[in-house]
């Protein structure tokens, strides 16, 4: 067993983990049940977390490797998160089980490429499964979130 510090949504949490404990189980144990198992093999995206901003399948990630790494879970996003707001506005959920994973993938994409359009969105979401079939709403939500970020950037750049 190894003592590690997980930095989850900005909060440092000291835990002791076994070598093969999965990040998924450790985060759920800490109450972050927005991180969910769907397939156990990294193929559905329900267990997505961001590690230093990069998406990771926590069902395949050994927790011991994330000592000190900044982790983001969907439940820890700010109260007024632009991606969350656009998902709600676009009705981008049915059962909702997979949606936190899509939200985090969206965050990763828009941080890298705020100009992302439908093709880039689709490419980035290709490993996330929404069995309810809410893909079109999800794409719309991220197109709108991208637009919102571009507009925010433009406003910032405009001379006072």
């Amino acid at each position: 067993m190894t003592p590690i510090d997980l930095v989850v949504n900005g909060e440092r949490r000291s835990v002791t983990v076994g070598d093969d404990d999965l990040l998924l189980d450790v985060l759920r144990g800490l109450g972050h049940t927005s991180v969910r198992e769907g397939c156990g093999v990294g193929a559905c995206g329900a267990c997505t977390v961001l590690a230093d901003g990069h998406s990771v399948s926590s069902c395949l990630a050994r927790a011991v490797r994330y000592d000190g790494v900044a982790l983001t879970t969907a439940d820890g996003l700010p109260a007024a998160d632009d991606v969350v707001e656009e998902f709600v506005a676009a009705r981008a959920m049915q059962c909702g089980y997979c949606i936190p994973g899509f939200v985090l993938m969206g965050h990763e994409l828009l941080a890298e490429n705020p100009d992302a359009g439908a093709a880039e969105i689709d490419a980035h979401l290709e490993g996330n499964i929404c069995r309810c079939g809410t893909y079109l709403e999800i794409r719309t939500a991220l197109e709108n979130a991208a637009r919102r970020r571009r507009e925010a950037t433009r406003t910032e750049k405009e001379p006072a």
Partner: protein
Amino acid sequence: MTVDPRSSVATAGTEPGGAVGERWTRVDARAKVRGELHHAADEALRPCLDVVVARSTRPHALIESVDAAAAKAVDGVVDVVTGADLHALLGDAIFTGPAFADQPCLAVGKVRYVGEPVAAVIARGQAAARAGAEEVAVGYRELDPVHDVDAAVLGAPFVHDVLRPSIVFGDLAHLRDKRDTNVNYEYTLRHGEPAEPPPGSVTVSHEFWCPPTHHVPIELPFTAAWRIGDRLEILSATQTPSYVRQSVADLLGIPLGSVRVRSAPLGGSFGAKMYDRLEPLAAALAWTRNTAVRLAVTREEAFLLTTRHGCAVTGSMTADADGNIVAADSDVRYDTGAYADVGPRITAKSGMVASGPYRIAQAHVRSRCVYTNKPSAGPFRGFGVPQVTWSHESLVDELARARGEDPAAFRRRNLLREGDVSVVGTPMHSADFVGCLDAVTDALDWDSPLHRPTGRYRRGRGVAVGIKAVLTPTISNAVLQLNQDASATLMISTVDMGQGSDTIMAQIAAEPLGLPEGSVRVVTADTDVTPYDTITAGSRSTYHTGNAVRRAAEAMRDKLVDIAAARFGVPATDVKLTGDGLVSTQTQESASIPELLHGHFGARGTTLTSEAEFRTTWQPYDKETGRSPQVTEHWFAGAAAAQLTVDTMTGRVHVEHLAIAGDVGRAINPAMVEQQLTGAAIMGVGHALFDQIVFDEGQIVNGTLLDYQLPSIHDVPDKVTPIIVENPHRTGPFGAKGVGETTIIPLAPAIANAVRDAIGIRLTRLPLTSERILDALAAQEEQS
């Protein structure tokens, strides 16, 4: 159905409205997006032991020994329980099932499929339980297995020595103790007199196959159970809490009232999480060992819990010289796997629509439910109907083409209309097949010429319609609590699994009371709290539970009117409920709901309660003809049309435009209806093109999400057009009916018909993989 005349009469003139037909935001939308909504496995539980089962490695074998010594030696393992152990404690009650009591939660004496639970390992922690399960050694004496449905029909080997119909169903009594057969149920439909085809008629016939598939809701199955004195409590991801309560009470031989079943919002289900899944084993272990247990399964195990029926159909259809369908014949064989589950019901309910939604002079259907040595097949969105629709919508298309007629026009002439009596004997109402067909073909601009390139990519268009009967008879109840602050709490046992029932029911409850969006909270199903509801399945909730909810809300309105009349000193007929509260039209005196309840009870924080039930009745179908004047409470009508290209080099199908329509009576929430129409269609695209369970000698070979094929965002059609068709049902709540299955039913044949249009080849086996398409193109080239 039962009608409460008071509620109908009292409705007039006092309908505040403002809820039904509105695009209210889905309840818990933000919590869902942020992942803060708790599913069953997210609940904080009392300390539980973890249970993992050791599974059969044989498709058909006698269990000669179970050696658990090594498993028990694993650190953390508490005990190992076998089917024989539970059978000794519970007797034959260990065999459960919704139609046949044939499935033990742990195999007793014999295994019937690869993956069947043989022993339960109880341990402190999942890892220990899983490690223990690896160590259970089972000695088998192998029996000949039967994997193929048509081989199983012919005779030995037999999966079950004796049929075990459930005592619940009187119409299955004649099957009790029947031996030497794998056919556990047979439904026959005979309509009209067989006759020689008239001169100039055209007949088409084919063999069709739909493979078994899996639901793959992304939330994995989960059940926890514990005993508190003489009561058993269960928390389970289930669509059927009321069923589970009775099933578990019967299993344990304890009173219904001693069992509490709680469900939770489901992360999808589509039929996977209903009837007896993990609950019997969890209940049996918790009860007999007086301990708290938790069963959480992996995705690989989830594939073994239930599947969609593979189905073979031998079908033919005849049109006379005028283009009227004069005869249809279907021989349907559902592969129900090792246990019947609800297969017999599927066999009957889908058999009765195997000829499609057409005016047909003479129809014959033989529909059989057949055991094989595979995981059990159960309910799946569409309840067996997509499999027979695959047949009739392919046949109708070929029939139109054989006559040189446009497939849409041919269907339009033959489709059932309002008031027509279907071949099964029940009249049509609020099922506008023609309207749905027109909607989807209009969306595709069907009558304008299609650009048809002649090179590598070929383009085609196809259409299909679908019909399904709602489950009948069933029962729903609702209890409504109006809080003194004018919010409301609705107690129903409908489970929200993404279809949006918590939102729809809130809208129905709000409508008669004029309550605003966000003011009605639906309580998550809990049999200690929420009243009986048959099941959340088969697109039945909006109509059935919706009617109970509407009645409860109307009863509440009547109560408020009575209280206000007493307060105002006027007759009840003088009081109106408005968005602002209750008003006397005579005196103009008014009181808001908070004021009224405060005054009535003399206290703040009080609640006023109303309740209602809704039941449907049927007339059982005739044993000989399979017909009934009231075989179902209502019909679902839907249509799909696809425009696509086929890459003749790779065999890949690319759907450019998919239009789907359903007659929903009335859309309670149009936005959510569109999501159901679209979501079912996208699932249907998977079924059409690649989604299937592949077996090898009874073993699933693609039972992980690395291999099992589900539509991703790349598989979504370029354009999807969902169309709501509304022909209000005379007894639906505000005219409404359900919608969850409507568009999955015609989806696969619509795509296959478009492929037929594009490349001139009729494919009869699903899915339409690139390999099948290229093989067919190669054969076509060889012939020409």
